[in-house]
């Protein structure tokens, strides 16, 4: 859902949007850091499909897409991204 246009620190974003996808505009993000230091939350959603719908509505020229918090998957599920190939 669209959010209030107020610049927040990453600590504030983590507190307010834990385990949500956020799109940040007017953000600060050092090249060598894994997470931004601040930004304005343009849209946010707990569900990725909803987030995908929101980021395609009037997309800004410059934004950052971030998942906030620790990714959590069902117990006994191992995410195996390796050994992938593509064939034309």
């Amino acid at each position, binding site marked *: 859902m669209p959010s209030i246009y107020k610049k927040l620190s990453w600590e504030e974003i983590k507190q307010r949007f834990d385990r949500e996808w956020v799109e940040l505009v007017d953000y600060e993000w050092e090249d060598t850091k*894994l997470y931004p230091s601040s930004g304005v939350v343009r849209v946010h959603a707990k569900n990725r499909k909803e987030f995908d719908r929101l980021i395609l509505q009037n997309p800004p020229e410059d934004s950052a897409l971030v998942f906030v918090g620790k990714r959590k998957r069902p117990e006994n599920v191992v995410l195996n991204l*390796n050994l992938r*190939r593509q064939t034309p």
Partner: protein
Amino acid sequence: MQTFEIDRTQDIPLVTSRIYGPRGTRRVQLVFDTGAAKTQFHTPVLESLGYSASQAIHMLSMSGPAGPLQEGYSLVLEHIRVLGKNFNEIEVGVFDFDFLSEDGIDGLLGFDLIREFHLEMNGPRSELIIY
């Protein structure tokens, strides 16, 4: 030499990138995936930058050790900056990471780009060092 932060608390290794398209730029986190042959993105991420399937240059089938997984396509990404390096006009895969993206994945940094780096990982210090 530049030192990049990695997050040991996550189950998967993530790095940040900046990608460019016809309508602008995005900062996104990519899985550092040495086992992926090609760098790939979740379809809506590239669509938000103005890319579309009409720019496809190859149809792709993604397969892993368990067999075929998904159909997608490739297109030419204008520009990507990742781990301090810039790459222009590279062919990337475009797939719907419908399952993976629920867990927080916008794309994969594949071996096609990883092999261009001289790097060292210091896991205990949460660092990826690029020479």
